[in-house]
């Protein structure tokens, strides 16, 4: 077991150190969170459950992006394009080719991972700012293909996806959001656990070594080429999963859902949440996901005293979004995750400052 003292957490054995959770407080918080997640569908109405589902999908995408940007240090502005690859692949395979949905989602994940690895190839020669611009180009090129290649949508400009049904278990209209909630919750938890454990393996550690100091990483025997391309593939795989789930959940696939703005939205999530932290990606996705509905509520509450505010809603939303990014970068560049850690420390050491 491990003991917690004011000087920190002390491990008494290697096994104890390797655990994901060390203290009683962590288990209590886990139990609380599980309780909240289980209670959500009974407490929330359909509108808020829909927002919860969108957030769950965003969590998967943000975790994927954080693997690449936060843990491997490779900047990517191509998130929207990779989401599009996942969504289109799964929609076309399940709809037109008639494959079962789980299989089509799996193929979409592999497909996105492959395309992600391909567009990650510039990372072998480019760093930092140049890489950001190269991924910007990949985003624009994927969007161009998606918009112009009419074969993808059979000339309609969008794809309609059938309501999800897996092996006889089908989503019903009445309980649409609730059923999706359970499905997405299960997938999201699996993704978070996989990602969390990825960074306890040699592969995950090699990603972090590349981020911290690539030359030193090479000196201790990390194959940088392999690490970078794998990071792009693994990250894009998660993003492809998020894209495929978006396709089946929203039941229509259009290119407008995957523009550069979406890439920026996801980058904002991991910045606000905390770069290089799985929990941070989750917090960030929740923060950015809750921002629009909460702003809508606030504006509606104010609209009696300030009419005309409702028309400005999209602009206000963008302004708050931009201000949130700037304020987080200036005040707490390590995001919500760091704020949460500091809060816990404050409680733990009280009444002392540190």
């Amino acid at each position: 077991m491990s003991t917690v003292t004011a000087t920190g957490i002390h491990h008494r054995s290697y096994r104890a150190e390797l655990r994901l959770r060390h203290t009683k407080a962590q288990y209590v918080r886990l139990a609380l969170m599980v309780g909240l997640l289980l209670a959500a569908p009974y407490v929330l109405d359909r509108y808020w459950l829909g927002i919860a589902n969108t957030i769950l999908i965003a969590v998967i995408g943000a975790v994927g992006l954080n693997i690449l940007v936060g843990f491997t240090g490779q900047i990517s502005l191509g998130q929207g394009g990779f989401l599009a690859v996942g969504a289109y692949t799964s929609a076309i395979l399940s709809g037109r080719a008639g494959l079962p949905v789980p299989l089509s989602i799996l193929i979409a994940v592999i497909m996105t991972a492959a395309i992600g690895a391909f567009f990650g190839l510039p990372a072998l020669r480019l760093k930092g700012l140049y890489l950001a611009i190269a991924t910007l180009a990949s985003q624009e090129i994927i969007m161009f293909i998606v918009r112009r290649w009419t074969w993808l949508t059979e000339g309609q400009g969008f794809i309609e996806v059938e309501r999800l049904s897996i092996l006889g278990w089908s989503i019903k209209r009445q309980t649409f959001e609730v059923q999706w909630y359970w499905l997405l919750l299960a997938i999201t938890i699996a993704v978070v656990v996989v990602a969390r454990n990825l960074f306890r393996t040699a592969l995950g550690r090699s990603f972090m070594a590349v981020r911290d100091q690539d030359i030193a990483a090479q000196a201790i025997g990390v194959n940088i080429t392999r690490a970078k391309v794998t990071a792009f593939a693994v990250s894009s795989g998660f993003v492809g999963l998020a894209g495929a789930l978006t396709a089946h959940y929203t039941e229509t696939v259009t290119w407008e859902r995957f523009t550069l703005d979406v890439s920026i939205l996801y980058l904002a999530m991991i910045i606000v949440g905390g770069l290089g932290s799985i929990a941070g990606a989750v917090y960030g996705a929740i923060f950015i996901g809750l921002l629009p509905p909460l702003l809508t509520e606030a504006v509606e509450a104010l609209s009696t005293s300030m009419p005309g505010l409702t028309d400005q809603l999209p602009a206000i939303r963008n302004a708050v979004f931009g201000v949130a990014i700037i304020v987080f970068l200036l005040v707490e560049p390590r995001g919500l995750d760091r704020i949460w850690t500091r809060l816990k420390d404050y409680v733990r050491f009280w009444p002392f400052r540190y």
Partner: protein
Amino acid sequence: MNTFISLTVYGLSDGALLALAALGFVLIYKATRVINFAQGEFLLVGAYMFYTAFVVMRLPLVVAALFGVLVAIVLGVVVERFILRPLIGESAISVIMVTIGLSAVLKSLIQIFYGTSVREQPPILPTGTITVAGTTIPVNRLLVIGIAAIVLTAFSAFFQRSRHGIAMRAVADDQQAALTMGISVRRVFTLAWVLAAVSALIAGVLLADLSAVEQNIAAFGLIVFPVVILGGLDSVPGTVLGGLTIGLLKQYVSGYADPGLAEVVPYLVLVAILIVRPYGIFGETRIERV
């Protein structure tokens, strides 16, 4: 032949505007190593400020232009002092994201105050046409090329001759050496953002005069990336060459092949350049092991 001449004139004028927009981008990168994703929004703010002074406040053209320059200077100083300076020394991703956040804020502020509809602005440049070799060419396109050429020449003269211009080049070359020679690096950083905002103002006003005063002006900011990568991220002559190349290429592709394809061609060029010669045509070759 007629199509060719008119496509060339349109391409050159687009290219001249791209070069102006890219100039501000390169100034900021050269002096401060910041990639400014809000360059398009600087154009947008410039165009709307000039519109406010010229149309809403009914000021004479020259006064309106001076008002625009004043706002651009304030914008440059405020952005540098309060947003970029605290981030000096932070990672590339932080710097990129802060300019993306800035672009969202600027764009939505314009939307809140002016709405999304297209604003009417009387033409500043003469709108007539002249006929060259049987082709009618709008005069304002030709004038845009001329104005851009004058502004770009003025800027390069500033860098070659004036004290501040030389100080900026010194800082771009070696910050520590410049500091030991008594150059205020802070002031140079501020100056870079101010000059970038002013050149964006000129580009924004000219662009608005050719098209319209509307939100789409900001989209110009993204095509700046292929331009600067082609010319070299830290090269002022590179912006001219890059701007003209991309401008002409877009017009030729859209005229002879497919207007949709013209949107993506700059990015294809960008990828090709990044693979073959990442530092661009005139960019400083920095060998960096990856």
